[in-house]
């Protein structure tokens, strides 16, 4: 179904804008360049292309291809730093470009596909990028040595040139391009001793930020292919519902409206600009077939989840005899619950598509580039090589852009449109048709004796996102993400059992959200640890510390944060400190939050201190920034975040009722980095995981009230209960 109507004559300048991803004055090239791959190296006579990540031209300019997408985490810079370090490139000569979709060349080694997520860019690519840089360096040295007819071992590379120390001869990389191109890449090039790192470990200026202060940076939503039209959409508000009838006579009268596209599950209006499309959409009278989910409410969701959590699940880890141990010592039972959450990235979902008979072109910011390409291929029926995807900077991912639904919907709309069309979701659609952080219920029991935990059971009930998203990773009923940080709980507990009970909520689609599995588990475990410390009559820091003998890196972080936060020093009334410790994402982090709870039950988070051991750090300032931002993201969830369901639809719609932490509510944040020579850990999601339990424990310290559900319920914390 679709109706075409006459469009406003094109007399304004909008189609004059062809934006390509170059910005004068910066070393950054984004998005619109297809890199030459290793197999195509032969054709690139003018460049030295030792592998899929590095290209050096005769002028010595080094272009690095980014396998991971930049969404604020600084990965363009840190990936470039790793490559440039081992390549011994001149940092000022480094430019970068986004990789095209290609799992083979640019797949994340931990996933096997081109994914940016799970805080693992540096962990996953650490060795392969170093080898790529080191291999190229070895070839350039070899090329110079052959030119000089000397032993390669008597030459070294530094700052974009090869030098023969004994004679003082030196050749810049640009002069070696042709010679090096004829050499074959070494199989296992030697890597630098980290003690000799010159770039890694320095807080370098990020490569992507200069064009983010002046409006030049291009996100997916900024794509402007010539002739582009603008569309916005309404998806059936009830999950799984379809379009019934569309009365469009008024919409056709809206100036600038060009076309109304009616699909099974959604209606889109195409206009000369977004306002025309929005006005047109508002003028439509749509009757929906709400389908079988119209009765689903939050109550339905929670009843189902709680019932499921009463049944035993698949055993993810067992040690000793947990059941027997629970009957000794003093036993405590508790359960914790987390709500649905939307991602709400500041850049609303969008995707620009041009479908032609024999090809399809897509402009988008995606964490899963090859999946974006595959979605477009599937909808159009075109082979993959006829689908070009231009990846862009991402205006906030947080897991939402690990899905390709925005691409699939945009391509379906674009199939009905003649010419390129930019489909931009309103904030309301973005929040009401998210793929949500699942609801979780964690049922825990433990017994303590002599100040230590002797028995422990933990049953996690919730979605298996991996079962949908990466099915081979869901095995024997265990979701390895769902039990992450729970099956590998850092505390020394002799008898334990950790179970996963998969339960998919009715109607509501669920997906990854910043902090993924550990978000849930660290909240439940660290809240429960506090309850057990009280049961054991011990200080929360001392209680944890005494069970961390086998994890000295976390114990050191705990000691440092206790010292920096002034743990144990007096605080005013209704003010308290809470601690949380975690080993999530390969990083060892301890956090103390200090909160004041006012008489109305409002929680004021005054200060957060974190101590972090994340192994070798590539760009220290980026690590600090990720912790600071991750903590704020977690605070927003703990204080405000909840998506509720009524009549099969999401009740929140925009920032007035899906609240975000603002600058006046942000605490002071201190992050202390612990020097380490261990392999790098992940960092992007760690703060988000740390904040909620630390705040919950601080609220307990301030009020004596234990909150076992998020977001915090002010009514429970108010001194004077209102009627």
């Amino acid at each position, binding site marked *: 179904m679709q109706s075409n109507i006459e469009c406003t004559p094109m007399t304004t300048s909008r189609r004059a804008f062809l934006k390509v991803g170059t910005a004068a004055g910066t070393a950054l090239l984004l998005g619109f360049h297809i890199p030459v791959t290793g197999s195509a190296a032969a054709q690139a006579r003018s460049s030295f292309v030792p592998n899929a990540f590095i290209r050096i031209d005769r002028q010595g300019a080094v272009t690095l291809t980014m396998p991971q997408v930049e969404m604020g985490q600084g990965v363009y810079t840190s990936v470039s730093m790793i490559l440039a370090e081992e390549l011994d490139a001149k940092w000022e000569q480094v430019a970068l470009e986004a990789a095209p979709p290609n799992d083979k060349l640019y797949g994340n080694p931990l996933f096997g596909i081109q994914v940016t997520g799970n805080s693992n860019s540096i962990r996953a690519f650490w060795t392969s990028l170093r080898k790529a840089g080191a291999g190229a360096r070895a070839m350039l040295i070899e090329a110079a040595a052959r030119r000089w007819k000397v032993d390669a071992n008597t030459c070294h590379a530094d700052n974009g040139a090869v030098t023969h120390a004994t004679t003082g001869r030196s050749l810049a990389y640009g002069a070696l391009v042709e010679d090096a191109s004829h050499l074959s890449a070494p199989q296992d090039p030697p890597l630098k001793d980290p003690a000799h790192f010159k770039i890694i470990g320095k807080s370098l200026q990020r490569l992507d930020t200069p064009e983010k202060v002046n409006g030049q940076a291009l996100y997916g939503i900024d794509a402007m292919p010539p002739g582009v039209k603008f569309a916005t959409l309404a998806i059936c508000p009830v999950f799984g519902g379809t379009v019934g009838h569309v009365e469009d006579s008024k919409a056709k009268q809206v100036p600038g409206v060009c076309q109304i596209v009616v699909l099974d599950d959604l209606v889109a209006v195409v206009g000369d600009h977004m306002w025309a499309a929005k006005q047109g959409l508002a003028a439509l009278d749509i009757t929906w077939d709400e389908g079988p989910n119209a009765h689903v409410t939050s109550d339905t969701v929670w009843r189902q989840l709680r019932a499921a959590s009463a049944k035993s699940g698949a055993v993810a880890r067992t040690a000793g005899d947990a059941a027997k141990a629970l009957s000794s010592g003093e036993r405590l039972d508790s359960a914790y619950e987390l709500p649905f959450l939307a991602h709400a990235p500041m850049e609303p979902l969008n995707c620009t598509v041009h479908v032609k008979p024999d090809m399809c072109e897509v402009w988008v910011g995606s964490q899963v580039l090859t999946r974006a390409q595959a979605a477009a291929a599937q909808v159009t029926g075109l082979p993959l090589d006829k689908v070009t995807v231009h990846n862009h900077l991402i*205006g906030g991912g947080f897991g939402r852009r690990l899905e390709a639904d925005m691409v699939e919907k945009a391509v379906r709309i674009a199939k009905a449109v003649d010419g390129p069309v930019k489909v931009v979701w309103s904030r309301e659609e973005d929040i009401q048709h998210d793929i949500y952080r699942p609801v979780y219920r964690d049922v825990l029991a433990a017994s303590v004796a002599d100040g230590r935990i002797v028995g422990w059971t933990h049953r996690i009930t919730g979605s298996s996102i991996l079962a949908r998203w990466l099915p081979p990773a869901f095995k024997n009923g265990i979701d390895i993400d769902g039990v992450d940080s729970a099956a590998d709980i850092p505390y020394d507990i002799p008898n334990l059992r950790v179970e996963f009970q998969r339960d998919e909520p009715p109607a509501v689609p669920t997906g990854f959200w910043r902090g993924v599995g550990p978000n849930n588990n660290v909240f439940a475990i660290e809240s429960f640890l506090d309850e057990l410390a009280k049961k054991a009559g011990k200080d929360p820091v001392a209680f944890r510390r005494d069970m961390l003998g086998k994890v000295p890196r976390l114990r050191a972080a705990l000691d440092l944060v206790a010292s920096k936060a002034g743990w144990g020093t007096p605080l005013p009334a209704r003010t308290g400190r809470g601690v949380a410790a975690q080993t999530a994402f390969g990083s060892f982090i301890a956090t103390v939050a200090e909160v004041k709870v006012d008489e109305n039950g409002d929680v004021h988070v005054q200060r957060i201190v974190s101590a972090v051991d994340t192994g070798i750090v590539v760009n220290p300032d980026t690590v600090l920034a990720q912790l600071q931002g991750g903590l704020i993201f977690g605070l927003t969830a703990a204080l405000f975040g909840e998506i509720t369901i009524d009549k099969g639809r999401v009740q929140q719609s925009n920032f007035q009722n899906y609240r975000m932490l*603002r600058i006046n509510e942000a605490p002071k944040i201190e992050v202390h980095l612990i020097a380490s020579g261990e392999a790098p850990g992940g960092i992007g999601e760690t703060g988000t995981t740390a904040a909620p339990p630390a705040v919950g424990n601080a609220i307990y310290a301030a009020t004596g009230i234990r909150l076992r559900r998020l977001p915090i319920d002010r009514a429970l914390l108010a001194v004077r209960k209102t009627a």
Partner: protein
Amino acid sequence: MKTARILNGAWQKSAAEMSYEIPPLWHTLQTQQTLELPVVNLHVNGEVKAVEAANDTPLLWALRDLLGLTGTKFGCGIAQCGACTVHVDGKPVRSCVVPIGSIGERAITTIEGIGATPPGRKVQQAWLHLEVIQCGYCQSGQIMSAAALLAGKPDPSDADIDAAMAGNICRCGTYVRIREAIKKAARSA
């Protein structure tokens, strides 16, 4: 002042350069003059720009979709997040709720032009020096709000910063650095 005809020509040149097929529909539409929309002159970053759109069109969409100034961002559409902040006569406004017909000849400054003002330049420099930015999507709006704050209050207190910046949401959580950077910009010459 640029005319629509010249700009049309520029578009066709761009399309040709990119060897884009110009879809037949657009050819048809270009010759049809069925709907007459008002021409609104906007004074943007020191230039007069003509847009053809209804008077109630929010400035945000005129800037982004009709003038190609995509540095100003869409975040919520209801003046709740501040991503679309621009200046009108030096005052910060949420361009998603300002109709183009209400602006007249008042001066509009966007993120693309704010670097030409002393407070704007200082804010941009402080933002880079303290590496405030993460994803950057909200930062056009943050910088516009901060520049307006410093233009009116060269030495803002924490309370001034809260009042001026609380309308700008940053989902990456860069607030700690935004506060520092505003203070740094205020101290810089």
